[in-house]
């Protein structure tokens, strides 16, 4: 699980062009949207694409995404449970 979390942090930084941020800057339970990392709606969509591409999970409703992407912790649990890749 911690490997997955590490992986997620790296992917997020890469995928969302968060050049100023390092893996150490992101705590597992940091809020990704809103006050935490300050991601926006397009970032959420990018994460949805990433879920599909890297983990084989397809989301059809963008609103589902907001719950899953609450924090690295939540994301990792969800992926561990539903991944197809």
């Amino acid at each position: 699980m911690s490997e997955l979390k590490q992986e997620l942090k790296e992917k997020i930084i890469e995928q969302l062009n968060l050049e100023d941020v390092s893996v150490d800057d992101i705590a597992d339970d940091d809020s990704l949207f809103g006050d935490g990392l300050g991601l926006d709606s397009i970032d959420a969509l990018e994460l949805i694409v990433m879920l599909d591409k890297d983990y084989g999970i397809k989301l059809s409703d963008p609103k589902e995404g907001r719950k899953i992407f609450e924090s690295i912790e939540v994301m990792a649990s969800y992926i561990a449970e539903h991944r197809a890749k």
Partner: protein
Amino acid sequence: MNSKNYIQAFSHIKNNTVSLNGNPIYNLPEQNFSVFIKAAYKHLETKYSKFFKMDNLSKLAFLAADILLKDSKSEEDDIAIILSNRASSLDTDRKHQSSISNAEQYYPSPAVFVYTLPNICIGEISIKHGLFSENSFFIFDRFNADYLLDYAENLLQTNKAKKVLCGWVDFDEENYEAFLYLVDKQGDTIHTKEEITRLYTL
């Protein structure tokens, strides 16, 4: 035409050099655009992390505008933005196109698609500087001083804007150039086609 308006300041980004009012303020030769523009961002202390999500055209327009708007002493926010180019958003269009061309690896990126319009760069500038003013983006074969002159004069004379940020921002593969200028009621250079063209070629 007897303009009562002036070019208050202007910027260039081309040949890996950023200049303000004709004076180079940053230069990084022999690097590709991506490396150059990020280095310029840091050197100029832009401090705006959303910069890194922008596409090449937006990064170019954003920085060229930022050095002018940061430098602008007034708190003016009624600054209309009229930009133009030749290649529209082609550079990013190609990226989007290639992401949908491969039937096997079929993952178009929303973050890329969002930039497949040339006027998004105006949006980026407006967001950072809180500008709710009029804005437009034109496609021309080449830099068209006449057009920009008329539009800006019209806006200022009819009080539709207090200042106008005009210019040309073009990005096509590794060929890029940006020339932006601020038109206002005061400044060192009178706002005419000849002067605009002269500054463009500096």
